[in-house]
């Protein structure tokens, strides 16, 4: 499958006279194949928006290469801009124009036929409110308008930066359906988000970023499989047998956490080995369930942003790859 979006070794350093430099992107890589819905995940301040801005030519990178639809950007941006629809960060529009005027002006600038305006207004559900000034819109309605503006070009690649922000549950579901429909029609969708449930539901593949570097990527199930911790829950026929089982399993090198009616095992490669081990001791398993990891726990593990009781995690305290692997504020901080 051809790559629709390719980023290699992208660097962006923000310089501030007062506070030194900050590496917002520190050799970031990303690849999105055609026809996919791709999730772009990362904690706040990890560099998602910076990546998308750089890709779209709004900010100048300090190094690395990027390509969109097979063309090197930013040089070829004028060629590909007509095929890339994007919203970056929170949607912003001139507040005194109506939604229809806003879209019609964009359509005019981009030489898109005017009928397309009505089509996208219908698609995002703003048809009946399109004559009202954007100033009077709620956040979710502005978000819908932003998506409409990105869809206006009928793009091959759709890039949405946190599109679920401000949407109501119904809106999120509609957006999900819309994105699936678009992907089925052949559009490639890149979706930055921190709403992991959403990503897991609709994305084919993901890239996870932390402190300006990629920490994981690939199809969603592969990422989950790679990072599943091998957790297994077992129950025995007799609850009284649990201590014996614990002892046996611990001796076999498996980490065991006891619970009143079941045991949680960690680091199990093959669940079958557990059954055999216990059967040898005449303990019979009534339930053995590999615990499916979800994207959220993988995300928290990879970016090291899981909450720790009694600690207030600061935004830059997340996983830095290629370094010590320890979470800490040292990497990428101001004045580094």
């Amino acid at each position, binding site marked *: 499958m051809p790559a629709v979006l390719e980023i290699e070794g992208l660097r962006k350093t923000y310089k501030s006279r007062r506070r030194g430099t900050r590496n917002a992107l520190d050799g970031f890589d990303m690849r999105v194949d055609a026809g996919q819905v791709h999730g772009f995940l990362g904690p706040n301040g990890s560099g998602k928006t910076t990546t998308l801005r750089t890709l779209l*030519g709004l*900010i100048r990178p300090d190094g690395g290469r990027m390509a969109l639809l097979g063309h090197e950007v930013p040089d070829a*941006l004028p060629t590909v801009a007509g095929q*890339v629809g994007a919203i*970056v960060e929170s949607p*912003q529009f001139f507040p005194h124009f109506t939604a229809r005027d806003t879209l019609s002006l964009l359509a005019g600038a*981009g*030489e898109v036929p005017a009928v397309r305006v009505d089509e996208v207004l219908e698609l995002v559900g703003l048809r009946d409110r399109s004559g009202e000034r954007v100033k009077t819109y709620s956040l979710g309605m502005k978000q819908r308008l932003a998506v409409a503006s990105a869809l206006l070009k009928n793009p091959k690649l759709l890039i949405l930066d946190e599109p679920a922000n401000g949407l109501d549950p119904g809106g999120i579901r509609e957006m999900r359906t819309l994105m699936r429909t678009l992907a089925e029609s052949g559009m490639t969708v890149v979706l930055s988000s921190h709403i992991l449930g959403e990503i897991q539901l609709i994305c084919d593949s993901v890239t996870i970023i932390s402190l300006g570097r990629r920490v994981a990527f690939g199809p969603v199930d592969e990422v989950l499989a790679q990072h599943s911790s091998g957790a297994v829950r077992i129950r025995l026929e007799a609850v009284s047998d649990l201590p014996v089982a614990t002892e046996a399993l611990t001796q076999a090198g498996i980490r065991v956490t006891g619970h009143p009616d079941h045991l949680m095992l960690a680091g199990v490669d093959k669940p079958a080995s557990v059954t055999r081990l216990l059967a040898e001791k005449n303990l019979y398993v009534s339930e053995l369930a590999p615990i499916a990891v979800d994207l959220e726990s993988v995300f928290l593990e990879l970016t090291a942003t899981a909450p720790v009781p009694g600690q207030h995690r600061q935004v830059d305290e997340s996983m830095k790859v290629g370094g010590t692997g320890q979470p800490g504020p040292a990497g990428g901080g101001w004045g580094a």
Partner: protein
Amino acid sequence: MSLFRTELRRLSKRRFTRYMTLLGLLVLAAVVVGVFFTNQKIGADQLAQAERQADQQYQEQVRWSEQERAACEQAKTAGTATDGRYPPDCSVITPPPREEIKADWFLPSTFDFKETFDETLIPFAAILALVGFVIGASFVGAEWSTGGMMNLLLWRPKRLTVLLTKLAALLTGILAVTLPAAVLWFAGFWAVANFRGSTEKMTSGVWQSFMLTGVRGVVLVLVLTTIGFALASLGRHTAMALGGVVAVMVVGQFGLGILLSMASVRFAEAWLLPTYALAWMTKTVTLQDWNACNATYYGECKPATMDITWQQSSVLLSVGVVVILGAALWAMRRRDIS
């Protein structure tokens, strides 16, 4: 081309543009109406009336000087004329000769097209230049501050093309208002002159001079519009341009003016921008320095003078536009947009 037309549409859709234009045109109309009502046509009636008033004035002068002379003589005989209130020779107290009191002084003001139309082009250009400046600043400033510019750049990634097309659309729009307004202005004052003055003695030379002044006025409007646009684009906010100009005018110009006059610098006005705008419109502004008195043969004081010409102004205007617009374009090319 589509971008240009779109930007023109955006410009005309904006309420600020509409209200500002309307306001500017209303002020211009008010000026014409005001001039209309404060001028009168001079006919036989007005001349006779002025003649009568001059006569009256002369009579008054005669009466007054006779009174004074009588008082003078009285004081002399009484021997109290030592305080210098009266001249030694009472006969020098005479009324001015009749012909020194001109009937012209008593004529109501009248609008002589040939003499005055030129001057009316100064407020015309000034008002429209102000309108152009704020519209230009708000047109691009609001785009920057509301994120509209970023949206547009996602569609048209060539930044300089986008900015220059916006500027071209703005100047076209301003021109589309200024030119008809100039025609109406001319027609308005022609009517004023017709009904409240005279349209006589219009030679082709006069016409040409009016045309040139008009063209210079339009250029001034376009230059100020461009500067407003460029400043707001540089500061990425409408308020930046307006604030910048207020700062320059208040601190830079009034402050500078006060400072220069305190330091009694010669020709202090030569440091002030409005002088150059005025010189641009009137071709020359002659500054006078009354401290440097070139005594004439008769002992009269002639101040030293300095001419500011429209050529000097044109250099200043060009340099201003090139520097400010150049900076705006450079910033557009180089700076990150977030």
